[in-house]
């Protein structure tokens, strides 16, 4: 003997992005805070030590922001012209920045005046950074040279003039204190070793290089330039591992998350894409208002800071973890319930009788079980079902249609109920997954209530709305068909003359299915 089977509610595959673990993780940020800077934000750098302040380089200033502060907690403004690339040292005590006039300044985070000044570049210095031994600096300038500096003596150790265009990005190896890389507009990335007189490795990126990044292991190198993000295996002598083309404008900045599992890239196309570093597939992406110049992620991914070309700094903080406090709400069973049978020790031969599982039915299922069609339809037209889960409403309508009782369930309703019903139909009839049954229902309603049309203004208005909705949908479908026709002709010109009838068949079949789906 079978039990009652509840009405199956068809699950419609969700179109668009699938909700994955990644989307959930990256969606877990609060609404962004926007701060207006004086010019385009060219660099954001987080202090590697708590409380993780970050330095923002924009125009001729370097602002230091605290974690939740809207105002800068400190400002370095000793630059005559634009400042570039303010970068923290590993211990978070020193800050170095390049400038438009060609000098490099080293600041103490606590102080105001520069501790050291490095002169030597003849043109603007767009990139500067510490080597991992903390006592040396590297820099790259618009004079095509990449230099290495000694901090204590403020002197130039070595100058490499191997690039043939502006040097705009660079990165130091965290593993080897002597190794750093620079990327240039001459489409190359060069790897330098401080112990040698020339570059150790040259990687041809293909486009002007805007940003480079070394993985913490030092084995992989990521370069961004043009629309491409390319990953290279350094240990294999600069072999291209993967080339990603997910942006449609120049990629300007790169960043790794704290675990090293995800790679972020920001671009002038206003998107930040997040890649998995195992599969190099885009797992999530953010949208921003304007083109992105710089991007930084705080340790533990607590904060995402994005700098734009229009000088807006966009800061997103992670939401605090939700704690589930449900224990308080449920009424606890009585104490007696807990002690009952506590002392009983089950024996080997004891037969365990499991409680019969009670089938919990929704209200409409209970009504359908007892063949009360009209009431079942009423139950699914209640606001919370009608508005939030229209598929349940439609599934029950379908079931009533299947049982042949839909007409009697629709009949005999008053003005308010018809109004409600028509409102639902007019709103949902254009959804392809509901169309077939709702068209039947609209048909039946017009059939049943034809004699009373004109007696109620509200119902008449709903009928007109329904007509309008259907008319619009028909126009829309016609337009779509036109587009399809155009696309077909395009495809036909693209396919080779040798194309067999087979491919045509395929095309025809595909378009046919699309047409009927949209109908």
């Amino acid at each position: 003997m079978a039990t009652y089977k509840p009405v199956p509610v068809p699950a419609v595959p969700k179109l668009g992005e699938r909700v994955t673990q990644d989307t959930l993780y990256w969606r877990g940020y609060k609404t962004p805070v926007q701060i207006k800077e004086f010019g385009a934000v060219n660099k954001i750098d987080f202090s590697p030590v708590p409380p993780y302040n970050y330095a923002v380089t924009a125009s001729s200033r370097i602002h230091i922001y605290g974690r939740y502060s809207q105002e800068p907690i400190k400002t370095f403004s000793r630059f005559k012209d634009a400042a570039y690339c303010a970068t923290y040292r590993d211990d978070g005590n020193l800050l170095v920045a390049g400038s438009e006039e060609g000098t490099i300044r080293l600041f103490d985070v606590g102080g105001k005046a520069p501790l050291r000044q490095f002169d030597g570049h003849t043109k603007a210095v767009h990139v500067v950074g510490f080597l991992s031994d903390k006592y040396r600096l590297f820099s790259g300038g618009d004079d095509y040279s990449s230099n290495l500096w000694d901090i204590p003596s403020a002197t130039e150790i070595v100058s490499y003039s191997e690039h043939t265009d502006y040097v705009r990005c660079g990165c130091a190896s965290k593993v080897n204190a002597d190794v750093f890389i620079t990327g240039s507009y001459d489409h190359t990335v060069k790897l330098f070793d401080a112990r040698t007189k020339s570059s150790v490795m040259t990687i041809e990126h293909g486009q002007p290089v805007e940003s480079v990044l070394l993985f913490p292991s030092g084995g992989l190198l990521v370069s961004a330039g043009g629309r491409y993000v390319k990953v290279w295996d350094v240990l294999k002598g600069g072999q291209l591992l993967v080339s990603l083309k997910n942006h449609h404008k120049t990629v300007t900045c790169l960043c790794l998350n704290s675990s090293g599992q995800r790679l972020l890239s920001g671009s002038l196309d206003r998107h930040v894409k997040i890649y998995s570093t195992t599969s190099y597939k885009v797992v999530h992406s953010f949208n921003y208002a304007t083109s992105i110049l710089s991007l930084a992620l705080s340790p533990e991914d607590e904060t995402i800071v994005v700098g734009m070309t229009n000088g807006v700094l966009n800061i997103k903080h992670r939401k605090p973890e939700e704690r589930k406090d449900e224990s308080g709400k449920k009424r606890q069973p009585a104490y007696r319930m807990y002690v009952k049978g506590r002392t009983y020790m089950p024996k080997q031969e004891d037969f365990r009788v499991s409680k019969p599982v009670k089938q919990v039915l929704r209200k409409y299922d209970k009504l359908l079980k007892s063949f009360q069609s009209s009431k079942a339809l009423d139950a699914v037209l209640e606001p919370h079902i009608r508005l939030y889960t229209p598929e349940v409403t439609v599934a029950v309508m379908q079931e009533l249609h299947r049982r042949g009782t839909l007409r009697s369930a629709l009949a005999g309703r008053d003005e308010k109920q018809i109004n409600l019903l028509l409102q639902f139909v007019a709103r949902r009839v254009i959804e392809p997954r509901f169309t077939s049954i709702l068209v039947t229902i609209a048909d039946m309603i017009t059939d049943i209530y034809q004699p009373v049309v004109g007696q109620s203004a509200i119902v008449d208005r709903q009928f007109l709305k329904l007509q309008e909705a259907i008319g619009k949908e028909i126009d829309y479908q016609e337009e779509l068909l036109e587009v399809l026709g155009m696309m077909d002709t395009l495809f036909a010109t693209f396919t080779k003359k040798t194309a067999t009838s087979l491919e045509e068949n395929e095309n025809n079949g595909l378009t046919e299915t699309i047409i009927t789906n949209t109908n």
Partner: protein
Amino acid sequence: ALRVVRCGGSARYGARAVFTADSKYLFCASGDFVKMYSLATEETLRVMGGHADLVTGLQLNPHNHMQLYSSSLDGSIKLWDFMDGIPIKTFTVGSKLLALYVVSSCEDSVFVIIPKSGGRDTFQLVQVKLTRAAGQDLEAKELSVVLDGVDASPKCTAFGREAEYVASVREVNLQVYFFKRKQLNRFSISAVRTKSRNNLFTCVACHPKEDCIATGHADGRIRLWRNFCHKKEYTYSTLHWHHDAVLDLAFSVEGMSLLSGGLESVLVLWHNESDCRKDFLPRLGSAIEHISVSSDGALCCTLHSDNRITIVNSNLRFSKSIQGLIKSTVVKTGLVVDPRTKALVLNGEPGHLQFYCLQSDQQLFSLDIVQRQYIHQAGLNQTDLVKVAFSAQGKWLATVEEREEATDPELQLKLWFFDEETQSFKLNTSIAMPHEDSITGVCFRDTDELDDDSLILVTAGRDRVFKVWVMEEDTDPEARQKVSWSCDFVGSYHNYQATNCCFSEDGSLLAVSFEETVTVWDSVTWDLKCTFCHPPGKIRNICFGRLTCAKFLIGTTDYGFLCCWNLLSCALEWSAHLNVLVLQPDPLSEYIAAVSWLSQESSLFVFKPNEPRPTCIQRNLCKEKIHLAAFVPRDKPEAVGSEKYLWLRRSQLFFLTEGQELMTLSTKPLDERLTPSSKQLAVEESLPVTPFSLLLGKHRHQQSQEDVELGMLIVPNEHEQSSPVVKELLHTPAHVLPSASFLCPIFINSLLISKQNQRAEEVADVVEMESEKSEDDSDEERDTAEMEQDTSPVELWGGATCKLSKSQERELRKIRKTDYSWVSAF
């Protein structure tokens, strides 16, 4: 020679089921057989065959509850000893028997319904006198008409309490005949006919204790008639719950409640014959055809239209169900063999797929495919299963369900994965509307060599395309399931409807038939390789040859041609003019079976594709059309003597007739399907074991051994248990029993009396015969012959006795008939 063996799913039940007196066993009329089921194990214990046509009535012998009467359309009534499964007597009545009623008050006669001689579609209830004469086959020609113009259905006539009256309904008339007063009362209700329904009588039942008749009507009403001994002042009350015809009614043993059932497949229990108190047992699977109640009132049994038997407790709790091959309205799925269990798979109850075990004639399990509530109502168009396909290892199952509608059919393609943990199929992918129109063919690429990842499913639809479905692996590690199915390729041919599809044995070629043309496609690139056709006539079936004949493609057209094309030369190899309905290749050999429909009979042709001459022809397989057949691989190859039947060595051919009877072909003589163990019935009633009964049992055992040694007839000992005195003796505790000297005469007397009761009748018969003898000399010879037959056991004892004079002989016989069996008990 080849024999057609019926092996399951036989015709529907013609009569109500009958419980044995102890409610341990159940009898059902099933086609030409009477089946005996054990209620404890749900097993078929015995199949009693002997009738030549449908069994229409079953009744226990009221005077000996170890015997059973059965009637059949072949015009005979049989009396069975069901414990041994042997017919004791066969009474030939002559005309068709449509129903059988046995009442306890008429000792030597039964009531049957027979067609009125001369009249068409008129039937009469007659009393048949069963002669007491000795011998197996007897004529029962003494008929006396009781009622005229009764309905043919056995449910339309019922006997009232203590057989004082008989009630019969037909159309809108109820007639009650009182035996004692010889009075016939007729009542009629005014006929009401609407579009869909009418209020005709459908069944009748009589209250066992009161003067009350319950009648069921086609509009779902039940009427309770009282005071019907008066022609005018009769009354009736109405009970109404059923929305469709009431198909059967039954009163409980005491008459306190009434059970009714109908098309809704709900068993309704009406308390105290009132409308307000009723209980329901809903969703019994299919329409309830017959209801019967056991004599102790503890159980109730319903027979359903899908050949299922349901046992229900007295408190209306579902107890168990006995089911073989479930009969569904239409078998659309065809016969498919599950590669895993070797079970036959086909439509079961609505929306379900049944897995039927051929060896045990039982349903293994029923898989719910549609997963929707089925509404048992006539004229509703509901979703049902239309196509089924298994992958080669049985790991994947593809099902297609369809709800036919005028505008657009609702279609769903479901793919099920066999879950090793739960040992059942789990839904993997469900595709709504895979085709625009109904699907005509589904097949998997069943290649054993390839791993399951390259599994391909092809569906052919009436929407003029065939689609190729492939498995896709979900790269997302967090995904709920690893694989899902999606469409890979859509192919069509000149905008013709695709009708069949099938893969070659190695999976490299796909053949799809488009109306008159067969197209062959490469299964890797999906290129059209070649086309075949044999105009005129559309292609009905296609299949590839196997093993050595893999280069052949066989097709049949509805113009009556069987064609064999060579795939290498792309030419017609041979063709034959044959109207083939079923084309079934054996998966384990080259042989292909074709069942044709020629001049009102089905014939079987078995051939190898490489030679146009069939290996085996079996004409007149059955009189019905055969639409479905399947080869089921045998567990171990059978030894087949003849070259002609070599094709039966590795697999067995099963086919399903239009009446949904499952048949097979066998070369062996009929062997008993039942295992010897199941034949040993527990004849003993469950007596509590006391030292006395153990002693008695020992004696009885010894005695039976002695009997065997002596070659004597074993004296039946049933009376020992049935006698109330013995029961009392065995059940009373020893310390309250009176002295043995007091008990002994009672005990002995009880044995004697019970025996004499039975024997007295026979003695009376003999006396009667003798009186006849004196009157009619011509009968004498026959009688003496019979008597000599009767005395044959005596001859065993000594040859001299037959030389005795007649008076001496009679005396001797009298002495012999005196029962001395009690002596042996001590």
